[in-house]
């Protein structure tokens, strides 16, 4: 069994790592990581806007975003992927690669989830910060820009990292629309070998485990450090911040 696994890794490590890259599209683990990083990078600014809209006093901003968040949370990611697969080519009028379809889906999906994290971070900061900033002459946007968001986002770093881990796990669903990621590469290997599916998928599980476990570990360490630093600096409620963010971000 161990020998089989080592033989598979020896023969197919390049395919698992970068897909058929020089001769075809970039794939494998590299594609998984690029897709996850890009979608978080794009979802992040969107999530801040969504969070501000949900905290806004104007119903016209608050309601549509609340509906959007509830819909994205209530519908399986797979369903959203199928929607993008159908709608993105229709709206852009072009033949879109599955990578772009998956990226679009993940930006919407993680944008909605991250907005909950950001909102929890802002709410956990308490009213006092906003009131104090306004008393010092800041406008709403000035207070957000210079007082609230820097603190809230700093507290959110571990949660953002956990969202990144969820995104890595979510990219596997791209398998359904043939995104050439790590899962896709592994199933290609499986199709070539045909006789050792358990070994191939075990390797796949181990690789995902190694990546996600290490990132989760980093997130936990950061969380402790930030909690300690916040407690030392301001006496804010880091435990509450962390707990809230955790409840919101813990999705399998």
């Amino acid at each position, binding site marked *: 069994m161990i020998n089989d696994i080592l033989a598979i890794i020896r023969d197919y490590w390049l395919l698992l790592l970068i897909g058929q890259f020089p001769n075809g599209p970039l794939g494998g683990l590299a594609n998984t990581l690029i897709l996850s990083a890009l979608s978080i990078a794009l979802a992040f600014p969107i999530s801040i806007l969504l969070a501000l809209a949900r905290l806004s006093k104007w119903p016209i901003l608050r309601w549509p975003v609340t509906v959007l968040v*509830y*819909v994205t*949370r*209530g*519908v*399986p*990611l*797979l*369903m959203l992927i*199928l*929607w993008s697969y*159908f709608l993105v080519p229709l709206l852009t009028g072009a033949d879109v690669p599955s990578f772009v379809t998956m990226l679009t889906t993940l930006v919407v999906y993680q944008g909605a989830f991250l907005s909950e994290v950001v909102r929890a971070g802002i709410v956990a900061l308490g009213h006092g910060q906003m009131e104090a900033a306004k008393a010092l002459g800041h406008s709403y946007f000035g207070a957000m820009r210079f007082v609230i968001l820097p603190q809230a986002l700093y507290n959110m770093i571990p949660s953002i990292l956990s969202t990144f*881990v969820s995104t*890595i*796990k*979510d990219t*596997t*669903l791209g*398998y*359904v629309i043939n995104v050439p990621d790590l*899962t896709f590469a592994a*199933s290609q290997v*499986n199709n070539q070998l045909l006789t050792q*599916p*358990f*070994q*191939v*998928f*075990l390797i*796949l*599980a181990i690789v*995902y*485990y190694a990546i*996600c*476990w290490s990132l*989760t570990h980093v997130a936990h360490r950061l969380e402790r450090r930030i909690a300690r630093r916040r407690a030392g600096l301001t006496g804010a409620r880091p435990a509450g911040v962390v707990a809230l963010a955790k*409840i919101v971000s*813990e*999705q*399998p």
Partner: protein
Amino acid sequence: MTGFDLSAILTNPDYVAMLLHGIVMTFVIAIGSWLLAMTLAILLLALRFSPGRFGNSFVAGYVSYHRNVPTLVQLMLWYFGIFTLMPDWLAYWLASHNAEAIFAVIGLGLCQAAYFSEDLRSGLRSVGPGQMEAARALGHGYISAMRFVLMPQGVRNALPPLINHSVSLFKNSSLGIVIGASELTHAVKEIENLSFQTFEIYLIGTVLYLFFSLLIMAGGAYVTMRADPAWRARA
């Protein structure tokens, strides 16, 4: 693409039958794996609290594996991998008894057990050591203190994450399509292939998922409210 026409799908008895079958299978998978997950979660919790280091590290490893490996990969490992290693008589039996759905239940159930047991554990941890000491001082044994004093409070604390994860489990039943289970997403894809009314059938599928998810969330909110001592004192 022709004009928007929901009725063409909803009046076709074949499509309606496929949708209903999909809904039933989705609930069979979701409820089956929920029950499996909850049973395992309680066993894992008991093992976690049992004396001795082995149980503790076993549970930690179990939770770590199921939280850090994508659910889809876990399902693939079960259906494409472990299924092929099974003895012939068992594989035959499974293959003739809707193996896809059975493996969806096993895969999702084992995975979700990790989340449920962690939810219950953090709920119990937030009860406070004084409760156990007080219960023991009043003459309760360990089991009886757990049963009558700690668990009721711990489960109440754990309700919000348990409900969130139940919704996730319901949504994750859609992953069954990858291993060929004939649940709701599968039915939606089939009808799309047959009718070419992509927009309409995706809309129907989405509304169905959303409806059931919101129903679970609302049910959870109601249970949370009923479990709140302040509410019970008023009622």
